[in-house]
């Protein structure tokens, strides 16, 4: 604030002064996010740009599409297919098991829901590594599950439940379920129960009310839950690596192997870029779908 301004108040109506004050304020506010942005840039964006750049060159340092052409080899194509199969299967199982849980939680009193939610949140808070280890112990050849099934006479000899696709899927469903249930529960909670009463009042049977009112209104929440689960599955490393026992080649394990076993950065970076692109496309597609599914009543 200048002295001249105080002496001749309001003459140019302070246009310049107000403008610079506004700009200063904006600078300070955006400055608050700057340290975090710099960190994300250094840890995420620069490596991504670097790897994307790297993927464009062959081993001799010449510009080529060699790294991407390699992705079409049967081994890689197979791992893509496995990845999508696993992600799709896990997501489907999560929907089948998760939807009833979220539905029941949303219908209970706040207190009862609070207690039951602990069963969902406890695994959520427990390290994925610990849970994967637990499944390994439970599912292995002489593990608890096989012991019980044998002693009950259900099976004659131990089932191969681990170090294969079965084990991978069981473990992944366990990891992913909370990611589907929690957002779905939150969106179901936002559905006004009066709407169901209104449907009943119009003559809908309970199952009609559920199918014609509740189900459509829960769709946006379900779609975003599915998207989250599917995308997390696409890039998931830990559980396939441990419960798959090296026999389930997924996208993520291929990337890890390319780096740690073969030091093949060209292949690893091409795979990563492809994975990121697919992830982005899925997220974008689902966003479009969710927008199309949302009803104004479902939004705040």
């Amino acid at each position, binding site marked *: 604030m200048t002295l001249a301004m105080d002496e001749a108040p309001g003459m140019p109506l302070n246009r310049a*002064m107000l403008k610079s004050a506004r700009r200063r304020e904006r600078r300070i506010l955006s400055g608050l996010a700057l340290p975090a942005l710099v960190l994300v840039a250094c840890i995420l964006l620069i490596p991504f740009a670097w790897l994307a750049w790297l993927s464009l060159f062959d081993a001799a340092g010449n510009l080529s599409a060699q790294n991407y052409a390699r992705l079409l080899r049967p081994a890689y194509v197979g791992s893509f297919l496995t990845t999508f199969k696993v992600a799709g299967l896990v997501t489907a199982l999560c929907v089948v098991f998760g939807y009833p849980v979220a539905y029941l939680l949303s219908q209970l009193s706040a207190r009862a829901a609070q207690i039951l939610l602990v069963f969902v949140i406890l695994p959520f808070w427990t390290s994925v590594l610990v849970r994967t280890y637990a499944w390994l112990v439970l599912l292995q050849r002489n593990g608890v599950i096989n012991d019980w099934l044998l002693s009950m006479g259900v099976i004659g000899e131990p089932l191969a439940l681990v170090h294969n696709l079965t084990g991978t899927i069981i473990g992944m469903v366990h990891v992913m379920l909370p990611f589907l249930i929690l957002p779905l529960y939150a969106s179901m909670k936002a559905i006004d129960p009066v709407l169901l009463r209104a449907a009943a009042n119009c003559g809908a049977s309970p199952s009609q009310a559920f199918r014609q009112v509740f189900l459509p209104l829960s769709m946006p929440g379900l779609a975003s839950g599915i998207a989250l689960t599917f995308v997390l599955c696409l890039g998931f490393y830990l559980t396939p690596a441990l419960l798959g026992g090296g026999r389930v080649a997924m996208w993520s394990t291929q990337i890890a192997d390319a780096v740690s076993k073969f030091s093949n950065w060209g292949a690893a970076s091409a795979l990563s870029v492809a994975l990121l692109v697919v992830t982005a496309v899925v997220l974008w597609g689902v966003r479009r779908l969710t927008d199309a599914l949302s009803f104004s009543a479902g939004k705040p």
Partner: protein
Amino acid sequence: MRSGRVNLREVHKAYGSFRALDGVSLDIKAGEFLTLLGPSGSGKTTLLNVIAGFERPDLGSLLVDDVEFITRPPHKRDLGMVFQNYALFPHMDVFSNVAYPLKLRKVDKPSIRRRVMDALEIVHMQHLADRRITALSGGQRQRVALARAFVFEPRLLLMDEPLSALDKNLREHMQIELKRLHKQLGMTTIYVTHDQQEALTMSDRIAVLDKGRIVQLDVPATVYDRPNCKFVAGFMGETRFLPVERRDQSYVLDGRPLRLADTRAVSSTGETWLMVRPERLRWQGDASSDNRIEGRVLDVVYRGDCNQVSVSLPGGHEVAIRHSGAERQPLPQPGDTLALWLPAEASLVIGSAAP
């Protein structure tokens, strides 16, 4: 000279293409109780926020005691503010809330204690100094918010619809109490409300806002009895409008020239109306000095203190009159024809814009 004079000049604020404030100029005298009255979206809260420093206008000047305040940050403006939802700090008790501005000003402990207790005494809350905020009723919160706003003796007291969350009885009680408090403290007070009754009860002057502009600024009686345009007339009280024709220097209603005591409020162009309020209509009158309005009774609604009689006029217009039982006149029935009288001094012709 007392401090707390405010001079606003040409304050503009736009959000995109919406003009929240469209060149507001306003002079507020030291010690005055001035109310910014208007419907929601009229710009009254934006204007208060400009004065408080929470909104930065695009253009304009704000002088407080002849010092430019327009870019000064809120904490250096030295003004107390009472918010619509009180904005009391829930993590502090009553005493700490009121002591907060004094602590920031590094007042010594014994003085803080004394001043906080004095302020609480003024608002009759000294016995609840160590209550938690969540344990207070709405009216009590209101008093604490008030004490917190004036305890540091600011130059200006700003209030943003402070009574709107209270129920009707408490609100009316608090109106009187606020008015008394203003007299006692003598601080310049700028009060925002959309409730015309509240504005009329409390203010020294009222500024009526519409679409980001001040359309009328005057003492309550003038704003109510002599509104300068149709908007103000419609906003204040239960007003009906009857279109009148302009003929040279006089006005004609239904072929009869109107008897008017004063025609200052009319602009020279545009449509004109006769303003009719239920409490100004008479059951009896004198054809030589009053205006006669004839119509058919539409319905009679019982309202406790009176019956409200709606009367339909030729041309699809409608006026209402109150029947309290004190007049020498039986309560009319729907369908009756009725002649009502509007005395000349209560007859006002207005235009759509201020003259």
